[in-house]
């Protein structure tokens, strides 16, 4: 029997990682087993097989030690990429008829808030790093058309980052108001 494979490019925003996680889970439900993720984290390779029920998580960690990998593996998570751009993709199977057993890496609200804060920090740092880069292009580039193109693309990126930071802050506000009513 010929095994069929597919490769899919799928764009996702870092403030919406649960969307890509759900998409991967849906692929598995349809029998598309994830075989590989390219370092750009947006090209996925699948192989056709039996439908499976698997939870995927994209964890965002800026500081990890050996303990991190061992802890997740001990807890039954299988690693799929080794932290490209601070992203760690993990998966763990669960029972299809027990949706309440769908595993999570974060069992409390504080941990999710802190993960969102790590993402925000990265967006801010990259946004700030781009400023001197932009300035040097402005100073050294003789053609005004090129300067304008750079300026516009920089402003687009900046607006996008601001939007992302805003979304993450909104998520955190929502989470904080929920954490008042629960101790977890």
């Amino acid at each position: 029997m010929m095994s069929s494979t597919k490769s899919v490019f799928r764009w996702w925003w870092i403030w919406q990682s649960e969307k890509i996680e759900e998409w991967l889970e849906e692929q598995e439900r349809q029998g598309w087993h994830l075989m590989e993720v390219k370092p750009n984290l947006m090209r996925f390779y699948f192989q056709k097989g039996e439908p499976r029920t698997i939870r995927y998580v994209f964890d965002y960690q800026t500081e990890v030690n050996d303990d991190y990998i061992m802890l997740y593996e001990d807890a039954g998570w299988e690693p799929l990429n080794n932290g490209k751009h601070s992203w760690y993709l993990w998966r763990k199977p669960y029972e299809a008829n027990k949706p309440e057993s769908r595993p999570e890496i974060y069992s409390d609200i504080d941990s999710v808030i802190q993960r969102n804060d790590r993402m925000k920090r990265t967006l801010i740092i990259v946004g700030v790093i781009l400023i001197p880069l932009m300035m040097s292009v402005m100073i050294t580039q003789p053609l005004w058309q090129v300067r304008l193109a750079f300026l516009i693309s920089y402003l687009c990126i900046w607006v996008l980052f601001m939007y992302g930071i805003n979304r993450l802050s909104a998520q955190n506000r929502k989470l904080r108001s929920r954490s008042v009513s629960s101790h977890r």
Partner: protein
Amino acid sequence: MTETAFYILLTLQKVRYGYGIMQDVESLTKGRIKLGAGTIYGSLSRMEKDGLIKVVGEENRRKSYIATELGSELLREEIARISEQYHNAMQMEGINDEQH
């Protein structure tokens, strides 16, 4: 103190590594609390930085931890606070029962 931090300090009265804490907490709470790997990882690094727990060893790339004196002191205070809550709740229940 969050429930997560409370149970980590409680189980770390003895030397444990990350996964051991997860298993202990799950059996202590009869499956009610299943600590996530990410939650444990973040909590352990934060509590270590705050001096509430410390690393006592490393085996097969797994760190083992124990509560520090400061961590144990905070745990005792929290237990006292929870006992007070519990006793007050029981007293209140007694009053409500009389009213019925």
